[in-house]
């Protein structure tokens, strides 16, 4: 059996989880093993249906009164207890913040090794995995040992694909035994940042500025363009280091990774650290004075020119088409 640890938001299956299940199903098929899933806090019918669509035949719906808020060690403890009964060959999660965290706890609890951010898996006595290093700029082939292989799947590395036919699904509830210690690290509060704005990670359109913006004030036109497009505003690491924008706006290896329909990069040179964060974009439009800047190698479309000229022109053109006068 291959077990996948599921993340979902209000009954909606997380995209990264879908990617993980896709890889998990392939691995299960190779091994002739069934694909199972662990869902925290019980499985709503719509989740169960989606899981079946991805080839999951067994769902462990974990129910515990103290699992109302996220508690990574408790999640790991639940999976550990399911493992004891189900004897899986591998447990997988998405290489998301929570996925990596819960799997690291599982590794710690069981003393098993864990391989993060895998993109390919070959089963065997030990598994041969390919995983992303250096924020995805380098790949590592590694062998993972242990009685149960613990893996997370790199975000955006595997395209989510449903199974040819949905699996016949059996859902069983699982009641874990949790101690206070398992729950000592948990979310005690949640603070909403009521900006009403789309977040960088979620946005369908992202507009960003780099060193070429020149100053904090240089982001004015970018804000305006983002407003017209309903886009989120991001920036490069050079910008946050200069103190022009908060770190929350940073796109990159040590900032936010984005995956919009289109990413409009203005005055961004395209350092590796930045490219790592934006390569999940479906399309990239680069606006830069330098036609040879590294960002041009990552971009699908380019405008050669000064962002301080081009961006206002874009705003004007959008207004014109919408019939709004300046």
């Amino acid at each position, binding site marked *: 059996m291959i077990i996948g640890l599921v993340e979902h938001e209000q009954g909606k299956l997380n995209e990264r989880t879908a990617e993980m299940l896709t890889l998990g199903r392939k691995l299960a098929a190779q091994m002739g093993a069934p694909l199972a899933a662990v869902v925290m806090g019980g499985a709503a019918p719509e989740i169960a249906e989606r899981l079946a669509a991805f080839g999951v035949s067994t769902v462990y719906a974990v129910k515990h009164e103290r699992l109302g808020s996220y508690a990574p060690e408790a999640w790991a403890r639940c999976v550990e207890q399911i493992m004891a009964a189900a004897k899986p060959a591998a447990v997988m999660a998405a290489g998301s*913040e929570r996925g*990596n965290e819960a799997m*690291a706890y599982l*590794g*710690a609890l069981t003393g098993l*090794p864990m391989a*993060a*951010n895998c993109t390919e898996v070959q089963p065997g006595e030990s598994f*041969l995995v390919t995983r*992303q*290093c*250096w*924020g*995805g*700029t*380098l*790949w*590592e*082939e590694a*062998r*993972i040992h242990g009685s149960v292989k613990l893996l997370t799947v790199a975000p955006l590395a595997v395209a989510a694909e449903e199974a040819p036919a949905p699996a016949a699904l059996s859902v069983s509830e699982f009641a874990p035994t949790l101690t206070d210690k398992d729950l*000592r*690290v*948990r*979310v*005690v509060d*949640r*603070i*909403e*940042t009521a900006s009403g704005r789309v*977040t960088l*990670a*979620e946005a*369908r359109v992202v507009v960003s500025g780099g060193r070429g913006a020149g100053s904090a004030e240089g982001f004015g036109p970018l804000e305006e363009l983002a407003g017209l*497009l309903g886009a989120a505003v991001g920036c490069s*690491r050079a910008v946050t280091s200069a*103190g022009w924008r908060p*770190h*929350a706006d940073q796109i990159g290896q*040590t*900032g936010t990774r984005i995956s919009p329909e*289109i990413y409009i990069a203005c005055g961004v040179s395209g350092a590796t650290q930045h490219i790592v964060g934006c390569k999940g974009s479906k*399309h990239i*439009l680069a606006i830069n004075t330098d*036609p040879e800047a590294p960002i041009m*190698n*990552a*971009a699908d*479309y*380019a*405008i*050669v*020119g000064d962002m301080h*000229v*081009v961006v*206002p*022109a874009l705003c004007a*053109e*959008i207004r014109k*088409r919408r019939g709004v006068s300046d």
Partner: protein
Amino acid sequence: MMNVLVCIKRVPATGSRITLTPDEQEIDARYLNFTFSPHEECAVEEAVRLIEAHGGTSVVLTLGPDAATDILVDAMTLGMERAVLLETESGDWDPGATAAAIVEAVRAQQAAGTAFDLILMGNEAADTGDYQVGIRVAHVLGLPCVTGVKELKIDNGNAVARREVKGGWEVFEAPLPAVVTVKEGINLPRYPSLRGRLTAKKKPIERMKPQRAHGGLEKVRFKVPPEQTSVAEVLGKGAEAAPLAVDLLQRLGVL
């Protein structure tokens, strides 16, 4: 008063193309500088600020070859008071082995009189990206661990840590002693000062030679991903490219 340990990892500062050594086991670092990651720079900064605010001792630790003393000096230049080098001779130590070595060092420090209230690390290593050393260390030491932290307050023996999530923040609380892994953005690290560098050269570096535990994750080789050689379609120069660009936005259905 509190004692803070920061664990950092020495990695090459790479350019946009990474070249491997012929045996594909290492990055060819002939032209490269060595550094520690932005997350870890922030961990060091956080420790220095905590000691400035609360008093106590700050210790920086790394596991690596003798050459790794350079990043220990760098961290001490930024204000860490002393350093521990877990000296290794052979290549990579996987997360399990690394965590075991750190645990051994923490216990040795405690036996020698420095019990840590807080162990800070980066959220993940810049190179291997394992996302687990902090949690493994915390588990063996029986400590709570909060990861991915972008805001940290020490309040009455408790670590109150915030983690950025979609649409806001999750708040965690953990009693000290605890392990906290941080992300860039938790602070804006200072630059090293000249005096800092000159003093750092005189600060002590303690050396330990840990036993390498078997972690179970074994590197076979590195691979350089195929280079993207896409050529951007130039829509035009300057403002006159605006109509074509807006056409594109319309085509993509985002307008």
